[in-house]
């Protein structure tokens, strides 16, 4: 059996046994949902329906209903896309990268973080889809023979790389998540008394029995999937950044983009994980599993990635001046002093200054402040993408075509709608799925559980 240093804080608090872990996770599924859950899902469901309405209106009318114009041909659509993909990255980072580094605190948060990843990537995929205008021709992104009326798709284009990156990322995350869920569904199946839920969870568990050989394979699959999901997660946001970096627009074509986008993605993703988990642990009474130490670890990741993002902002600024290219430097001068300077300074204060507060132990172990800052970070990261995209476009090479971008109610409606759909999916997950990785938590109970640790020393 593995032992852990006594000075390490236990990851599972309280006097827990294997059975208690099962009970604590299965209880919210077997019990009746509290009233707040119904209220929350009604609100988010209504917002989701409004968003779906806006999307249908957009598809029926055309993307002219967005505030795009000839100069600013990309705005909220791609901003929201990059924002959602970025949020998704935390889930894979937690479940894959932290697995490779044997960070055991991941086990309390990986299941819900991966669920968040999947829902966020679905939301991201909405935007390129509806941005096509004629969504019924979406299959043209696949390499189909030119009898379909088009030539082969262009494999030199980062937009096509994105198609492959996002679809691979989504499906691989889904498989990774589901393979971890199978044994936990089996636990719920064997717990359920009512025939219908028993049948449903029985179906979802694929007849899992927990044989020794199956567990050996399970661990191998988890390890290999983590190994290939790690470069995958880095490649996905690198490719997203290449949508901009391989273009010729000043402010976009910078080689710093891939690492800068990836750390920004992890940064915003961890913020979203914190926002969701701080509520979920209270609502589902999981304080013994997701406690202050977990939050502190996540806040440390936020300081690191937030600082990388900060350095990237300053590097970008410096290089634009140092390059001596007047178009390039103007793009950046315009960012911080032009008509959209407000967005730039919101981005700077939310992403660079606010996470530095976590250097203070008092702040990074305070759950209320963490919750507030996690929302601030997500706002900041949305503005980061908005700043990169809109301020680089709105003043192009010909001053006569300089213009503003004004978001329309449909822009806002679709963005809010995706948040509504996302929250609805997450609420359904929290109600019907095992929100903690039961089988993984049980493996660390003896090495990192409070009662076991105290007994030894």
């Amino acid at each position: 059996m593995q032992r852990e240093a006594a000075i390490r804080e236990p990851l599972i608090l309280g006097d827990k046994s294997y059975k208690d872990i099962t009970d604590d996770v299965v209880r919210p599924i077997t019990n009746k949902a509290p009233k707040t859950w119904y209220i929350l899902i009604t609100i988010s469901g209504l917002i989701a329906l409004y968003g779906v309405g806006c999307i249908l209106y957009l598809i029926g009318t055309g993307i002219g209903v967005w505030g795009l114009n000839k100069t600013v041909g990309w705005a909220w659509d791609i901003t929201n896309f990059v924002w959602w993909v970025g949020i998704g990255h935390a889930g894979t980072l937690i479940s894959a990268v932290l697995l490779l580094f044997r960070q055991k605190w991941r086990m309390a948060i990986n299941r819900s973080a991966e669920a968040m990843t999947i829902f966020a990537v679905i939301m991201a995929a909405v935007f390129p889809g509806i941005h096509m205008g004629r969504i019924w021709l979406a299959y043209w992104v696949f390499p189909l023979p030119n009898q379909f009326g088009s030539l082969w798709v262009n494999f030199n284009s980062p937009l096509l790389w994105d198609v492959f990156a996002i679809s691979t990322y989504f499906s691989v995350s889904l498989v990774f998540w589901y393979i971890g869920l199978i044994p936990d569904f089996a636990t719920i199946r064997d717990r359920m008394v009512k025939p219908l839920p028993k049948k449903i969870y029985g179906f979802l568990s694929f007849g899992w029995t927990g044989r020794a050989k199956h567990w050996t394979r399970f661990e191998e699959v988890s390890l290999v999937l983590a190994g290939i999901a790690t470069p995958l997660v880095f490649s996905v946001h690198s490719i997203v950044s290449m949508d901009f970096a391989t273009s010729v627009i000043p402010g976009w074509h910078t080689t710093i983009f891939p690492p800068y986008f990836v750390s920004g993605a992890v940064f915003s993703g961890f913020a979203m994980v914190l926002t969701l988990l701080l509520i979920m642990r209270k609502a589902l009474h999981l304080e013994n599993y997701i406690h202050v130490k977990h939050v502190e670890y996540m806040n440390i990741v936020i300081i690191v990635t937030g600082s990388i993002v900060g350095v990237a902002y300053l590097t970008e600024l410096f290089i634009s001046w140092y390059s001596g290219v007047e178009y390039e430097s103007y793009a950046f001068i315009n960012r911080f002093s032009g008509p959209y300077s407000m967005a730039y300074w919101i981005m700077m204060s939310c992403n660079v200054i606010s996470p530095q507060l976590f250097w203070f132990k008092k702040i990074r172990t305070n759950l209320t402040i963490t919750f507030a800052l996690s929302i601030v970070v997500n706002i900041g990261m949305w503005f980061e993408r908005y700043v990169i995209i809109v301020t680089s476009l709105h003043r192009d090479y010909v001053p006569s075509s300089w213009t503003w971008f004004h978001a329309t109610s449909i822009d806002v409606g679709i963005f809010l709608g995706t948040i509504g759909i996302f929250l609805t999916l997450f609420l359904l997950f929290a109600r019907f799925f095992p929100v903690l990785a039961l089988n993984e938590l049980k493996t660390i109970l003896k090495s990192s559980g409070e009662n076991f640790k105290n007994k030894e020393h």
Partner: protein
Amino acid sequence: MANKVLHAMYNDEEKLMKAAQRVVDAGVRVKDVYSPFPIHGLDPIIGVKRTRLGIASFMYGMTGTSLALLGMWYFMIYDWPMNIGGKPSFSLIQNLPAFVPVTFEFSVLCAAHGMAITYLLRNGTLPGMKAQNPDPRTTDDMFVMEITTDQNHGKSTEEIEAMLKDDDLIELSVKDYE
């Protein structure tokens, strides 16, 4: 004589491992162990071999790499070369940098899905399958060791039973099976 299957239940993985080591040392073959989570160190005791899924995954990945490169060579170089921003459209090698992202993504796609499908097939865990764990508690907090008499011809059921009985044992069930 009908074959018997013995299920010895423990409430702790270390107790089960101790018992398994004891019976294996006495020459009994343990058919299987059902547990709510992976027990590290158990596989060598009961003779579970290392899985080859990792190798399978590598081969799926290589298949993906080859298919992606072959596809892009066919689409972009052979079938319909296009001059896009002056990028070389006449040679796979010279155009390769632009093909790296898709090659990588497609390799990962094939490796991950190929491995996941193989895993589910080899386990026999597929949608609609019926669970066969001997006791519903094995997915919660109990650990069951399964021993069958047809794998242990030299020993009688009673002998094995006697060997299993100790303080750690929670429950022992003996059933006929075909």
